[in-house]
């Protein structure tokens, strides 16, 4: 039943997207083909036009199999140590993502703890946390680069990780605020009858109660960290990473490089989300939660 209920519809949509893509590619690339033909003084037949639109070296929109073969060339056939290998570049982006993700979790949980424990903290920090997400981080990116350089960070990894963390702390914070304040009056009162101090209430009641909320936020947060890592690479003129490949492709007018990097980014994002989702399930079960 799952096949007919979920896999079949998804496959249909994906196939439809690929068909639309082929159509669009043929339409968009044919302009160039006709230009070339007019210059050569020939009039190509329909099949010649379609054939040509699928094998231009700098197409407006490469067809799917061109992108797949470019991906294959730059992942499997290139040595991993090569700068042209997307595995190598993806690894750099992944490193940024994970650092940003970790930093985002620490900041998110820390802010949530302050907000839940202190009234002044909640009143003064919460609005700014929301405002922080409405500020376009890309505008801040160059400033983050020079400030972290001045603070002694040798590489671009630090500013890129900060940008990733800037986007990824928010989902964790929102979830943790909800989670840490999820114990109700009955439970808080019970702990008070035990004579528990605020510290014990926090560690023995609030923190365990917040765990499901914490795990639920991780998937959103890692996706945000990944977007942040790519945005960071695009806006700090990085020289390595998938975002940097897009920059290079743009500067040298090589659309294939851009598309391959774009798809590598999509695949990596999918892998990250699936991995974190799986990890979330395992941890939830290990902590005694019911499987969802």
């Amino acid at each position: 039943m799952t096949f007919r209920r979920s896999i079949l519809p998804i496959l249909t949509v994906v196939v439809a997207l690929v068909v639309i893509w082929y159509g669009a590619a043929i339409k968009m690339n044919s302009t160039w083909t006709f230009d070339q033909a007019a210059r050569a003084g020939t009039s190509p037949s329909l099949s010649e036009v379609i054939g040509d639109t699928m094998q231009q070296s700098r197409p407006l929109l490469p067809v799917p199999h061109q992108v797949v073969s470019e991906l294959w060339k730059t992942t499997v056939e290139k040595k991993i140590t090569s700068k042209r290998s997307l595995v190598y570049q993806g690894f750099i982006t992944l490193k940024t993502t994970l650092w940003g993700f970790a930093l985002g979790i620490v900041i998110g949980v820390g802010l949530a703890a302050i907000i839940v424990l202190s009234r002044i903290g909640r009143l003064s920090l919460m609005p700014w946390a929301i405002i922080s997400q409405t500020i376009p981080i890309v505008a801040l990116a160059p400033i983050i680069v020079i400030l972290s350089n001045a603070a002694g960070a040798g590489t671009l990894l630090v500013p890129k990780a900060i940008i990733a963390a800037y986007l990824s702390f928010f989902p964790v914070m929102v979830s943790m605020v909800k989670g840490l304040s999820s114990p109700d009056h009955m439970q808080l009162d019970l702990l008070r009858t035990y004579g528990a101090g605020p510290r014990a209430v926090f560690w023995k009641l609030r923190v365990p109660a917040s765990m499901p909320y914490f795990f639920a936020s991780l998937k959103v947060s890692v996706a945000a960290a990944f977007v942040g890592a790519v945005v960071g690479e695009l806006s700090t003129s990085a020289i390595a990473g998938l975002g940097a490949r897009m920059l290079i492709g743009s500067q040298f007018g090589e659309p294939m490089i851009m598309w391959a990097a774009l798809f590598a980014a999509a695949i990596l994002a999918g892998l990250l989300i699936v991995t974190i989702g799986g990890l979330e399930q395992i941890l939830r079960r290990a902590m005694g939660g019911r499987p969802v």
Partner: protein
Amino acid sequence: MRQKDTQFERIAYPVGFGLLVLVLWEIGVHLFNVSPALLPAPSAIGAAIASSAAILWGDWVQTVLKGALNGIWMGSLAGIALALVVDRFVFLKRGLMPVANFFAALPIVGLAPIMVMWFGFDWHSKAAVVAIMVFFPMLVNTLAGLSAADTMQRDLMRTYAAGHVATLMKLRIPAALPFVFTGLKISTTLALIGAIVAEYFGSPIRGMGFRITTEMGRLATDMVWAEIFISALTGTALYGLVALIEKRVTFWHPSHRG
């Protein structure tokens, strides 16, 4: 257990915290003699905003009015329209929902260089990037919203002999509005990011992203901060505007009542 926050506290604390940061920043810069190329004092940034208001206005029109806003309306209308169509077909909905959710999590901003290649340096390419970035969250949220009305309410509409269109207009679209506004709130933030990043890949000689890169190259950091201030203000104002409209339009929703 907790005392209730008064309206005064809800405004005074965040404003006070913001001012405190500004004052510490100003004092810190003067105290440690930080080079203005590295970190200008807030007063210097204020002076830069005042002295180059005309340039900032031109950048703002180019990036926000032409790039971001055009992208937002195109992307959201397309997202909502597709959601309304897809909603009629259960099969399509089951297939599209996971795909759109996946796309919404991707760094779509990476399309920026390709859009610049397709649509040129002016605001059209920026609007295109923004429209694609905005499209997926709008589609996903509208689709989720359209299934927000529960079976009981739909059955009630059926007992009234309401057809698909009447049910849509009177029950399901109103019920979907809170979700649509959530999508719009996400969109306002994404839109500014998209419009500014796309300018890094080529733009006419105005625009906030263009100004940030060129002034950074000249180490005119106060001007960069001025643009950051304007973009922060714009982002917050757009978000606030959507929230305000939401409050007016979905006044019946539990989160806005009392």
